[in-house]
């Protein structure tokens, strides 16, 4: 998936991935996609829960991957609606 911006949240423990994602997406132009790369497995359910608390963001997709250091990553694609 294409993203206009990427936030590297690897190695961060909760609540930091969402604290930073919130800041980042509020600074993103409406319609743009923000890609957040996290290593915390808890981020999968937490991003789903967080997005539901707001009417202004969408969670487009979540996927798992591996980074160059072999760490398991959890990638979240967000879009600001307006």
């Amino acid at each position: 998936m294409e993203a206009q911006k990427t936030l590297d949240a690897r190695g961060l423990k909760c609540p930091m991935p969402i604290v930073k994602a919130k800041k980042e997406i509020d600074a993103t132009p409406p319609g743009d996609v923000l890609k957040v790369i996290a290593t915390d497995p808890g981020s999968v359910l937490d991003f789903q829960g967080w997005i539901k608390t707001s009417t202004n963001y969408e969670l487009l997709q979540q996927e798992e991957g591996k980074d160059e250091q072999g760490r398991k990553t959890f990638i979240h694609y967000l879009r600001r609606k307006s």
Partner: protein
Amino acid sequence: MMTTPRELFERLHAPDPPLILDVRNKEEFARWKIEGPQMPETLNIPYFAFIEDEEASVAKVKSWIAGRSRDVVVVCAKGDSSEFVAEILKAHGIASRNLSGGMVQWGRDEIFRPIPTPSPLRIWQANRFGKGCLSYMIARGQDAVIVDPHRQIDDYRDFASRQGLVVRGVFDTHLHADHVSGAPTIARAEKIPYWGNPTDFTGAAFDFVPVQDGARLRIGEIELMPVEVLHSPGHTPGSTCLLVNRGYLLTGDTLFVSGVGRPDLGGHALEWGRDLYKTIHDRLRGVGDDVQVLPAHSSGPLEQRPDGTVAARLGDLRAKNPSMRLDEESFLREAESAAGHAPVQYARIRRVNLGDPASADELIELELGKNECAMSRR
């Protein structure tokens, strides 16, 4: 300000327990939460709701507290998001403490409590309250044996050294499925025997000393303490009870204060159920009513005695334990109806307990949640 799981657990015994604000997502909250002898009043507002709308979330907390003078303990999975929320609450003038280490630590910590015994025998029950797991340290003189140790082996080491004890051996009453055993690690580190019934432990990747029905616990030729081994199949085929000093029966997952161990975890509810029925009625027949039953699980805070230990007279269990009161047919019906609800990670925990390697992160994940080893109507 923070509070440890042990402090919180003790406070849940007191007349004015704190309010619990759980800031995990609702899925994790539904799966496992803080419980105590008194059920605390608990509210779930995920931490991300505080990030998204701090004012509205704080207002919810304020209306929940509703002017009461009780403090709030904030809880999350590992203790970081709860610290973040506790700081927000403090900034809004709400007295709050963070549960350090979160639910992971809540599920890990133990409290050692003495079981009253005649000298020179001493027994302590280690209550891992968050998971409802019980383990034991039995001592005579300086010599100690640990039964069903959890993987926080430093807790046992520290306790033994504070009491001036030398741990001579470790025993598992059966191959555990709900938690990772600390026995192989202690045995390897201290170069002491790990005793277990071969029916459960054959094929293990580590050395163990097989003990059969009727055996005594010996190191070489020396009998450490008067412990008789009683094979008690049912929960697992190799389940074993230990009769200590003819006065204390460590029952593992065979018999609990208000139930019995599930015979369905191996996928043979009827067959193992028949074994369990025979065990609790025929095999334990020779054990006297005055013997104290010391189980490996607590099924709930109500099982605690006033001194905080989880134990009961065998005679009282024969009279009152609902599963012991059933005839064989109803017992087997109950065993069958309990079947099929085992947590998915139990198969993997059994393999780890036979020596399969696992990473530190995996061990934490595997052990999340309360034990589900008791047979009960669900």
